[in-house]
């Protein structure tokens, strides 16, 4: 929260400064820049900026020239190199944190982030984030390294964002996604549905309506059940994962990830709140609140999200307890009678 405010103030003052003393030598607007830079035939692939994706990021509010301040009206004919802002100018706090890590020597901000498609933690999926890492950390190698101590490493690596473990964040958030079967793969062929995939199901309507039936921006347990039981959505299912509650950039790996307790021993108490992340047309995700306790529902809340230890259902515990108690009826009841009638068996 504090970071956010600092950034907002910083950004506000930058805009003010921009109005009072044009830092920029160019009068070109964002639309002008995009007029050329979103057309592959004009600028070529290397200089392409995806306009739809860019326009939905907070960076779009800054305008192109804030970060490319040396651009002139004669661009590109002047042949002059265009400057690029340094992320650290505006993101000092993250920068301070990241630059102290050993990893700063291995990857720069730009290796993981595209400044024209920068999103916050709540607007990306686990696989989006892991794609950033897999440019350098090849997936098969990561699975192999982790399987030395992590059972079912391929499940964990496929499901979890790397930064859920490689972060100093002390808490997590449960995020649900809609996934679907990929026709071209035989086994474990589920992937998070994209906007266009879900549009096939919702037709002309908003995709949110697939699951948020009364469109109140809140997903109740009843709506989850309806979604899970709907035969028309047989190829879709709800996947669950854990996000860190904040994106720290220190890449510290705490012990509670190594001994599994962070996730599997955190108890049902911390599994109450969850969110559903639905894809948006610009390729990011928007979160919707889900009713408390949904992932703990015995059967229909999230039939395909289960973490041993944490998502156990209280009603099954009670049934199990009763079953075990029944096992003692015979010894106790029979044993008592046996004791009382012991004389009969003395031959």
């Amino acid at each position: 929260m504090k970071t956010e405010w600092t950034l907002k103030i910083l950004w506000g003052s930058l805009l003010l400064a921009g109005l009072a003393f044009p830092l920029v030598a160019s009068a070109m607007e964002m639309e002008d820049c995009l007029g050329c830079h979103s057309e592959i035939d004009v600028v070529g692939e290397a200089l392409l900026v995806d306009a739809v994706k860019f326009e939905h990021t907070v960076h779009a509010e800054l305008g192109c020239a804030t970060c490319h301040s040396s651009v002139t009206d004669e661009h590109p004919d002047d042949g002059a190199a265009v400057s690029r802002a340094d992320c650290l100018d505006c993101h000092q706090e993250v920068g301070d944190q990241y630059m102290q890590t050993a990893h700063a020597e291995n990857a720069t901000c730009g290796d993981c982030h595209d400044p024209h498609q920068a999103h916050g933690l709540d607007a990306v999926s686990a696989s989006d984030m892991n794609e950033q890492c897999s440019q350098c950390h090849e997936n098969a190698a990561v699975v192999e390294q982790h399987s030395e101590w992590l059972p079912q490493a391929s499940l964990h690596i496929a499901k979890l964002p790397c930064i859920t473990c490689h972060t100093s964040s002390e808490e997590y958030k449960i995020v649900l996604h809609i996934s679907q079967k990929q026709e071209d793969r035989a086994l474990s062929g589920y992937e998070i549905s994209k906007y266009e995939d879900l549009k096939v199901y919702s037709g002309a309507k908003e995709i949110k309506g697939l699951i948020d039936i009364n469109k109140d921006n809140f997903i109740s347990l009843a709506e989850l059940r309806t979604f899970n039981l709907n035969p028309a959505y047989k190829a879709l299912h709800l996947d669950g994962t854990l996000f860190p509650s904040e994106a720290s950039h220190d890449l510290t790996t705490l012990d509670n990830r190594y001994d599994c307790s962070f996730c599997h021993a955190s108890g049902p108490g911390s599994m109450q709140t969850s969110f559903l992340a639905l894809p948006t047309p610009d390729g990011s995700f928007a979160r919707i609140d889900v009713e408390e306790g949904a992932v703990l529902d015995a059967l229909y809340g999230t039939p395909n999200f289960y973490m041993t230890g944490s998502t156990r259902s209280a009603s099954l515990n009670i049934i199990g307890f009763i079953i075990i108690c029944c096992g003692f009826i015979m010894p106790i009841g029979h044993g008592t009678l046996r004791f009382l009638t012991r004389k009969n068996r003395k031959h």
Partner: protein
Amino acid sequence: MAEKKKIYLQPTPVRIWHWINAFGIITLTVSGAQIRFPEYITFLGSYKSAIYLHNTAGFVVAISFSLWFFYYMFVSRTMANLYVPKAADLKTGLVRQAKFYFLTYFLGWENPHHPTPENKFNPMQKSVYLGVMFVMMPLVSLSGIFLTNVDPLRELIVMVGGLKLLAGLHFLLACCLIAFIPTHVYLATLGHTPMEHIKTMWSGWEDEETEEAGTQENKDELASRRAA
């Protein structure tokens, strides 16, 4: 007074199997409890060690179960005979045995069933073991194998109704098997002396009293042997 005779009731492979199973199931119970209730139960140190122990014990029990199945089915070929209740068992045997356990036992009567290597289990034991060994053990092992291979088997898991259903089934079946333990151990103390049957499971030999006790079941059996 009946004359004491010893019979070799439990062959070595069966005894080894029985005790592997016993220790395996206890280990699975304790580690399983920690896996499900990690905030309350921490006998085995870290969560990780509980999972590793549970997986190992699970595979040991599943393999020993398969060996047992193989042994009775193909080596000693007595599986059907020992474990599947016969028509007579169902018609009269069950009632007779239940009457003994819940009534005549208290009056000091003899057990109507006399175990022999070919007919080790009484009709009640047969029915219960049939459920335990042919339904619950295979299902709990199979669901356990699925739970240790979630990623590769995800599609099958989704098809059977989801990971949660599978884990719930595994848990409830395990509870049923656990519930069977106190009953099983208690019934094992109902021999002529409390330790009689338990010693047999260790040594293989059981004291048996010869025929003049003349129970109905033994007469049936003698008759059928003569006929054969």
